[in-house]
């Protein structure tokens, strides 16, 4: 009888431990992969760019404390470069890029989906790029978090 009670207690403790562990893992829904800060003096761009991986594997770029100048036809892109200068014309010099979408706002926190299969070891820099004038408003080189 006492043995049985002990066994039940032990099992309960075990179940509780694993149950708690599962709960902790469920909260852990996104992994921080890479991060970097923006620089850009001509169009005074600042803030942080971070790439998260959600549980399903989806990649999301998030901009925080973000600020740049407003402008026409501004896009968020990833470029195959270690970094980029102010007003770099890299679209004209055929630097490879991945389009993430139109800039949602020139201020504030915002998320952009990164296409699945994007090679982050190759596309190492986030650029705020004005397509109309081929101007780089700001760049954030990403480094492992």
């Amino acid at each position, binding site marked *: 009888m006492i043995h049985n009670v002990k066994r039940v207690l032990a099992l309960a403790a075990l179940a509780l431990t694993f149950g708690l562990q599962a709960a902790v893992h469920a*909260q*852990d*829904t*996104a992994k*921080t992969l890479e*991060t970097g*800060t923006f620089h850009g003096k001509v169009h005074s761009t600042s803030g*942080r760019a*971070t790439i*998260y991986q*959600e549980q399903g594997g989806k990649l*999301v770029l*998030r901009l*925080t*404390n973000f600020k740049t*100048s*407003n*402008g*026409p036809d501004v896009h968020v892109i990833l470029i195959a470069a270690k970094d980029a200068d102010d007003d770099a014309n890299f679209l004209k010099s055929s630097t490879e890029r991945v389009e993430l979408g139109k800039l*949602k*706002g*020139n*201020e*504030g*926190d*915002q*998320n952009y989906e990164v296409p699945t299969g994007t090679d982050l070891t190759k596309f190492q820099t986030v650029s705020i790029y004005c397509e*109309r004038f081929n101007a780089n408003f700001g760049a954030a080189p990403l*480094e*492992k*978090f």
Partner: protein
Amino acid sequence: MSTHIGSLLSRRKWILAVSGPVLIAAWWAFRPEKLWINQKVSEAAPFASSSDPQPLYTGRLEGKAHPTSGRATVYRSSDGLQYLRLTDFSTSNGPDVHVVLVRGDDKTLTQEIVTGQLDNVELGVLKGNQGEQNYDLPASVDLKKYNAVVIYCERFHAVFGVARLEQF
């Protein structure tokens, strides 16, 4: 006389007809009003992580007197306590090596060997010269002032490596 006035009028019409579209095209291309109009957004993080420790500041470690690399991140846990976490961390082993916070604008940081007193907040003896590790921060520490992590050999006053913390 009347034809002269007529040609003047038609010239005005021409000027209007040409300059109108040109002005509109110039406005469309440059959108100068955007210089004064901000478009502010505030999207939530793409995941719920309120109970997980939140990163507050982060920076990459750079080697000074000895090759040092990795990332230093200050987290705040859900109970309000702050701690420093080193990841991908590697430095050289040494005697009496400590993890300290110093002021980022401290001039002594330009040297590899500190002469004089280093104004610092002690976080503890370095637990290992490689690997991931956590250090509790004193509750009173002002991270806006003490915004650089230094791996510091107290015996020889040697700055092994520095990480300047920036807001996450």
